[in-house]
C-alpha cells in the first residue's frame, strides 16, 4: 500500500485562499456568461468513450481515462466539455428554438504530461453557441471572451484570430499526396523556415504557390495582414475567410477593442477540429495560451443534428497564474460574529443573516 501522504500525480487539492480564488474566478466568469444570456449545462463526469473519440478527433483518444462498465460498455472520464455539450444540443435539445446558448464549468481529465500549471485534472470554463451561422455569433463569442478578461481586471491580453478557411483554401489547390501535406503542415506549425525550404525544394509546386507557403508563417499582426494576405490568394475559400476576418476586425475597431485583436493566419494548429474562425488568447508574461475556441460546425452533425456551432473555453488553472486585480480572495472576516454564548445565540445571528464563528 502506497503512503497516503501524497496524491496521485496530475491531481491537486485546493483549500484556503487558492480554493476561494478558484471559486471567485469561476463565479466572475459565469456572471459574464449569464450577462450574455447563456444558460448553465451540467453534463456527467463520464460518458461513452465514442462520444469523446468522435468529438475530439483522431489522436486524442490516447489521453482519455477509459474504463469498462458492468455491461461491458467502454466509458471515458470527460477530457473536455465541447463533445458532451454538442451531443446534448444535437439530441435532447434538437427541437429547442435556436440559437442555443450554453455555458459549463468544471474539471476535465486527460492523461498527459502536466504542463504550464495544467495537471491531468484541470478546470475548464466556457461557452457553446449553436444554431447561429456566420458573423454575428462569431463576434458575440469574441466579445464575451474580451469581457471575461475585462471582468477579471486583466490588461495585457491578446486574442489571436484566424480562420481555417484561409489556409484550407490554399491547401485545396495544392495537389500533393496526404503524406506531403502533413509534412508541410508540420513545418508550418513550428514556423520552421529551413525545414519549409528543404520541403519546397522537393515538391512539384509552381513558384507562386511556394511563395504563398513561404509567406503563411509570417501572416500575423494588425489589420494590414489581411491586405497582405489578399495580395497572395485568389481562391474563393481563402478570400471569403479574409472578408470574414476583416468584418470582425472592423467591428472591434468600432468598439475600440482592436488593440486586443491580432489577425493570425500563420497558426495552423488544431485545423482538423475547427471549420471556420479559431482563436487563442494570450496574456503577456504567461508562456501558455489561457483560452482557445472557434467554430466547429461539423461537431453537432456527428451526433445527428446539423447545427452551426461556435464556442471557446478558458483554462482556469492558467488564469489562476495571472494577477486578477478585480478579484479579492482574501479571507472574509469583517462581518463574522464570534459567538461564545451558546448555540441559541448562534442560530439567532444566523437567522439575522450574520456570519458566525462558534467559540464555545
Amino acid at each position, binding site marked *: 500500500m502506497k503512503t497516503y501522504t501524497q496524491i496521485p500525480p496530475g491531481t491537486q487539492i485546493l483549500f484556503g485562499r487558492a480554493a476561494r480564488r478558484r471559486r471567485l474566478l469561476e463565479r466572475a466568469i459565469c456572471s459574464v456568461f449569464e450577462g450574455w444570456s447563456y444558460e448553465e449545462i451540467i453534463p456527467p463526469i463520464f460518458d461513452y468513450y465514442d462520444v469523446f473519440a468522435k468529438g475530439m478527433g483522431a489522436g486524442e483518444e490516447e489521453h482519455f481515462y477509459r474504463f469498462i462498465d458492468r455491461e461491458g460498455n467502454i466509458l471515458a472520464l470527460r477530457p473536455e466539455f465541447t463533445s458532451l455539450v454538442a451531443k446534448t444540443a444535437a439530441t435532447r435539445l434538437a427541437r429547442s428554438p435556436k440559437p442555443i446558448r450554453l455555458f459549463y464549468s468544471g474539471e476535465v481529465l486527460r492523461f498527459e504530461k502536466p*504542463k*504550464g500549471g495544467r495537471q491531468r485534472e484541470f478546470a475548464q470554463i466556457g461557452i457553446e453557441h449553436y444554431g447561429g451561422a456566420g458573423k454575428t455569433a462569431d463576434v458575440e463569442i469574441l466579445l464575451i471572451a474580451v469581457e471575461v478578461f475585462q471582468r477579471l481586471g486583466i490588461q*495585457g491580453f*491578446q486574442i*489571436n484570430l484566424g480562420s481555417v478557411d484561409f489556409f484550407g483554401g490554399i491547401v485545396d489547390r495544392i495537389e500533393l499526396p496526404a503524406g506531403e501535406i502533413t509534412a508541410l503542415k508540420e513545418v508550418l506549425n*513550428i*514556423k*520552421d*523556415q*529551413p*525545414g519549409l525550404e528543404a520541403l519546397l525544394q522537393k515538391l512539384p509546386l509552381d513558384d507562386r504557390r511556394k511563395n504563398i507557403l513561404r509567406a503563411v*508563417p509570417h501572416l*500575423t*499582426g494588425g489589420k494590414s495582414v489581411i491586405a497582405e494576405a489578399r495580395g497572395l490568394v485568389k481562391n474563393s475559400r481563402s478570400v471569403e475567410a479574409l472578408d470574414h476576418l476583416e468584418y470582425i476586425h472592423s467591428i472591434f475597431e468600432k468598439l475600440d477593442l482592436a488593440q486586443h485583436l*491580432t489577425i*493570425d493566419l500563420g497558426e495552423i494548429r488544431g485545423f482538423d477540429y475547427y471549420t471556420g474562425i479559431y482563436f*487563442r488568447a*494570450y*496574456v*503577456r*508574461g*504567461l*508562456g*501558455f*495560451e489561457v483560452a482557445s475556441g472557434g467554430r466547429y460546425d461539423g461537431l453537432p452533425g456527428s451526433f445527428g443534428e446539423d447545427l452551426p456551432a461556435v464556442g471557446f473555453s478558458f483554462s482556469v488553472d492558467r488564469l489562476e497564474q495571472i494577477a486578477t486585480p478585480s478579484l479579492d480572495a482574501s479571507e472574509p472576516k469583517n462581518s463574522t460574529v464570534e459567538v461564545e454564548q451558546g448555540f441559541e445565540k448562534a442560530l439567532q445571528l444566523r437567522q439575522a443573516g450574520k456570519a458566525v464563528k462558534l467559540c464555545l
Partner: protein
Amino acid sequence: MLVIALCKGRFLDPSLELLGRAGICFAEDVASSRRLIFDSKDGQYRVVLVKPADVPTYVEYGAADVGIAGRDVIMESRADLLEPMDLNFGHCRIVVAGKGGTAGTDSDSGEPVNSRVPGTASESLPPNLLRIATKYPRITMDYYTARGIPVEIIPLSGSIELAPLIGLADRIVDVVETGRTLKENGLEVLEVIASCSARLLINRAGYQTKRDEVLGLIGALEKAVQ
C-alpha cells in the same frame, strides 16, 4: 526584455559569438563567469545558462522567451515550440552506429547482430531483440517504431560508444560530428536518422505577446548568421 536560454558547454561560445555579431553584448565574460544570469549592455536581453537538454523546457514554459539548442535536443524533448531559424553552427548527425561490418543486418529481420554473426557472439546468446544504447531514447523509439523494428532501448548518459564494445548493446544511437570517436572505437555509421544544427527556439505565447521584440531578435540574428 527578452530572456534567452543558452546551453552551457560546447554550444556556449558559438552562441555568444552569434549574439555578439547581432549586437547583443555583455559587460562581463559570460563564458568564464560562474553566474548564470547576465543582462546585455543595452538592457534589452537577459541571458540564462542552462544544461542543453533543459533549454527546450525553459522555453516551452515561457521561463525563457527564446533559446538556442541543437535540433537533437529539441527532437528528444518533444517540447511544443516554434523553431523558425537555423543558426548554422553545431552541425552534426544523429546516427545509428554499430561494429564494423554489421551494416544492413537489422532492417531485414530485426534479429540481434551477435546471434547471427559467428565469432562475435559471447558465450551466452543475447536476447532476441535488437538492443540500442542511447542518450536519445525517444528519438530512437520513434525511429524504430516508424520502421516496425522491435528494439530494447538502454538509456545511458555518456560514453555511449562503449556499449557495443563490451556487449551491453548491439547498436548505439548518438550524435556524430566528424565520426572520429566512432572510428577510434571500431564503430561505424550504419544509418543516419537526422541532420542537426543549432536552432532558435521561441515560446509560442511569447512569439505572440512579445512580437516586436521577438521579430527584432530574429531580424538581427538573420543578419548575423554566417
